[in-house]
Each structure stands twice: as C-alpha cells, then as structure tokens.
C-alpha cells in the first residue's frame, strides 16, 4: 500500500512538473520498462485531464449587476500604506521596549540590593519600597527617554500635518 502511494506521489509530482531534475529521468525509465508504472501514469494523466476540463459553477445572471449596485454606494479605501506611518509604528515599538527594559533594570536593581537567591527575590518583592520608584535615577532616565520619544512623535505628527497643509495650498 505504501509503495503504491509512493508510486502515485512520484507520478503526481512528475505530471505536475514538480519532480526534481534527478527524479525525472528515473521516472521516465520506469515508465518505459515497467507496465504497472505506465498503467498508473495513464490513469493519473486521465484524472488530471478530467480535473482540468471539469466545468466551473456559474452564479446567477444578476451577479455582476448585484455587485455593481452594491459598489456604487462605496468608495475605495485609501491604501493602507498611505495612512500607516512606519515611523510611528517604530516609535511605538521603541516606546514599549524602553518601558520593558526600564522595568527590568529597576526590578533587577531592587532584587540585587538583597542578599541574592530566588527565594530571597520572592521575599524581597513584598519589601519593595514603591516610594523610591519615582526618585530612582534609572526611572528618571527612563522617563526622560519617554518624554523625548513623545516629543519625537509630536514632531512627526505636526510635520505630516504641515505637509498636508502645503499640498492643499
């Protein structure tokens, strides 16, 4: 059964033209010398021919008219790339990475201040002094990065507005 399936698979590949360059002459030889392969090849070739010539189903006569009636109410949406600014996507990505890295650095800073070890980290979690959160140097640096990114985003936004205004003018 497996060899039969294997034979079929190789023959389908041969018929589809997806057989490898090394495989093709091997199958051609088998087709010349082996009647079982030749018979199976003819059978699969006939199935392929039938599949290719089988008819398509047709929708109702009013199909095109119905579609055209529907689209008269619609406008083509602007291409996605015209309203998705890649710079904004990158900025958002950088923002979240900065956020993640900031918390990671702060977390390790807090955990490192203890005597070490996983159990100690868990115990220390309860002891975290959240009042330090907003007076830590790292947090301040992180906040500054976010402010710069925010200004960068605002500049991008105002820049695109200015361009649009110039175009209209």
């Amino acid at each position, binding site marked *: 059964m497996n060899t039969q*399936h294997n034979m*079929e*698979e190789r023959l*389908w590949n041969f018929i*589809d033209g*997806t057989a490898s360059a090394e495989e093709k002459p091997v199958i051609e030889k088998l087709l010349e010398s082996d009647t079982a392969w030749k*018979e199976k090849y*003819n*059978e699969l070739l*006939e*199935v*392929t021919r*039938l*599949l*290719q*010539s*089988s*008819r*398509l*189903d*047709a*929708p*109702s006569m009013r*199909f*095109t008219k*119905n*579609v*055209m009636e*529907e*689209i*008269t109410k*619609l406008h*083509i*949406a*602007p*291409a*996605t790339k*015209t309203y998705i600014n890649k710079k904004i996507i990158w900025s958002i990505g950088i923002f979240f990475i900065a956020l993640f890295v900031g918390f990671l650095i702060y977390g390790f800073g807090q955990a490192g201040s203890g005597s070490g070890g996983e159990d100690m980290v868990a115990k220390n979690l309860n002891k975290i002094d959240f009042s330090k959160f907003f007076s830590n140097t790292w947090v301040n640096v992180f906040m500054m990065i976010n402010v710069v990114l925010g200004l960068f985003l605002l500049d991008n936004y105002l820049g695109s507005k200015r361009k649009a205004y110039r175009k209209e003018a």
Partner: protein
Amino acid sequence: MLTGLNDSEIISRVLNGDQQAYAGLVTRYQDYVFTLTLRMIKSREDAEEVAQDVFIKAYKYLADFRGASKFSTWLYTIVNNTCITLLRKKKLEIHSLDNEKVFEMADSKYSGFSANQVEQKSKLTMVHDAIAMLNPDDAEIITLFYKSEQTLDEIAAILGVEPNAAKVRLHRARIRLKEKMETYFAEEIKDLN
C-alpha cells in the same frame, strides 16, 4: 468593451475613478470565485452571497493591491479568508484534513444514488460531483490548482502556508478524491484504466 484590457489596466482605470470598469473584473472572475465559495460553503445561496461579498471587499480595498502577485491570487486570498470567517461565524464545522466525519457525511449524502443514475453520469460530471463530496479544504485546493490556474507557491500564499505544506495538502486531497471516485463512480473509473 473591457475584454481587451488586462487586469492591471482595468484596476488602474477603477482606481482613477472609472467605477464601471470594475464590472470587467467581476465578469472575468465571477465563475472562479463562485466555484471556490461553493466548494467551501456548499449551499448555492450562501455561496453566491459570499462571492458577492468578496467582490465588494476587493473593490473597497483595491488600492491595497500593489501588483506584487496576480490579481486572481489576491482575490482568492479574500475568498479564503471570507469563507473561513463565515464558517466560523456560523459555527459550521471546519473540517480538518483527517476528519473522518467528513467522509461519513459525504457517504450518507450520496448513498441514495441508484446504479442507473451513477451510470448515466458523464466523466466530467463524475469529477465535479466527486469534488463536491470532498471536505472544504480538499475541494478548495483542488479547485485552486486545476481550475484557477494557481501555482503551488501562489496557493501557499492564498492559504497562508508553506509551499511544501500546500504540496502535501494537494497530494492528500487528490488521494481522497480518487477514493471518492473509486467508491461512488466505479463504472466510470474502469474506463480510466
């Protein structure tokens, strides 16, 4: 009127405001799209509604078609996604490749065929009916490969899988198609050998 224009020419006309030019694309692809939706949805009424929806969506997002692939490949991607969404929404069973229930359903569907009726079927009708008995995944890939003139790479893009996976799916679908033909159309199959 628009028959001499290729897809790209029609698309640029539509994008430049000639809405009526879109009818050329609808006429050109309606049978392909309808056949694909019918193979997946099975009910003619639903399939026609989905096919219309596909053309409406394609029109709405036509500006997103940048010609990186053939228009037909892009259109069939919409067909695939729309049908899958509908099948999920209606909570119809999306049959996996190895779902035995599919075959039981197909078996019961055609069990009422008399020997005479089967004998009267032409070979082409037999292939058509055998495809209709397949599960939606198998029927779709066979239609895409044989009727919609899509290469395995294009089919892979439509289905969102690797080309090798598309090749395997096609092979499995053909095995199941052959099984259907051998089970229900034994007389016609004899002539093929």
